[in-house]
């Protein structure tokens, strides 16, 4: 996993990715083990990633998995079942819940911003 600042930079410097997410304005929750992060997006640009400190802070939807799973997802060549969040979902390696409509409306965008935290070129 890269640092949070690097993650933000990798997404926001990818003009094509930001363009694809230009209709996205929301905060979603990204979980690693017992820690949740609130990822705020404005017109496809990540404006902040903050650790969730109280339960009343929440996002439109939540994607959660164990650290070992995310580490595999973020390898340059992820192993099978870890190469895509929907492959992980199929194997019940991650959990997705909440209001899924904006996720589905922009599914490839969200897949790509999550994998941007890893080593692959996607």
């Amino acid at each position, binding site marked *: 996993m890269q640092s949070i600042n690097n993650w933000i930079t990798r997404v926001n410097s990818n003009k094509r990715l930001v363009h694809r997410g230009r209709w996205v304005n929301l905060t979603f929750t990204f979980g690693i083990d017992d820690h949740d992060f609130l990822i705020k997006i404005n017109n496809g640009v990540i404006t902040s990633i903050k650790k969730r400190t109280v339960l009343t802070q929440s996002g439109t939807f939540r994607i959660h998995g164990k650290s070992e799973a995310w580490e595999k997802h973020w390898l340059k060549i992820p192993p*099978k079942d870890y*190469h895509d969040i*929907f*492959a992980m979902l*199929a194997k019940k390696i991650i959990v997705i819940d909440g209001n899924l409509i904006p996720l589905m*409306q922009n599914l*490839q965008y969200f*897949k790509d911003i999550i994998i941007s935290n890893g080593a692959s070129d996607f």
Partner: protein
Amino acid sequence: MKNKDVNFEDIVGRYLSITVDDEVFRIYAEESGEGIPLICLHTAGSDSRQFRHMLNDKEFTKKYRVIAFDLPWHGKSNPPEGYHLKEYKLTTDLYKKIIMSFCKAYKVDNPVIMGCSMGGRVVLHLALEQSKFFRAVIALEGSDKLEAYYDLDWLHRPDVHGGEIQAAFVSSQIAPQSPVNYRHETLWHYMQGGPGVFKGDLYFYWHDGDFEDRSSLIDTKLCPVYLLSGEYDCSCTPERTKATAQRIIGSKATIIPGTGHFPMSENPELFKTYIKPVLEEISKL
């Protein structure tokens, strides 16, 4: 324009109309080569362009007449008249009838049939029911049963773009090692599907076409069965292909490392190294 700027391919396309259950279907088909007929069936929600690499490969077409067609509702094949009056749902019965009517129209003799994904499912039905007609069946990403892992309604609703969501769903089934140009060409086909067509296909693939209760009845001495699946396929997983192969006595299963659900279009060079020996073997049957 200089000649080096032009490249005509060997593939030739044509249209034909067939009648199934009193409905007329205008079908688009492409072919190349001479020899043993090889009928190719595309995946759910896509079309016959997936097989362009095989159709253009002289190593295959010198011995095989490779034929790929778009199912009705897909690619350049029309839905029948009145399609707008009912929801599209591909049934096992209609799927089999269209294939057999197509083969009859083309007057192919003892063909090989190769299908991918839902095409890999229906060829198992045909191996049982049409064992004298087909020389052999090849199931790419084939299994006799799958379990749904997402709600099909996401594929056809007004607040989610059908083409975008279809491509985003199936991108999970492509291996990260596959060449980026072929990955995106494979996804492009999904972005072009008609509204509700991928969902209607999955009615067959995930529900109506279940076959695990009959797959063990296939006699591979009458109709040999080959199963090839990609390591990274999270839909028809290698485990499901192996389980299917165990039920079909005498079938031959191969897992292809480093590819996914669309081996013939997402990594054609790798696929060739695995399908070539299968076709060589079948040609000697």
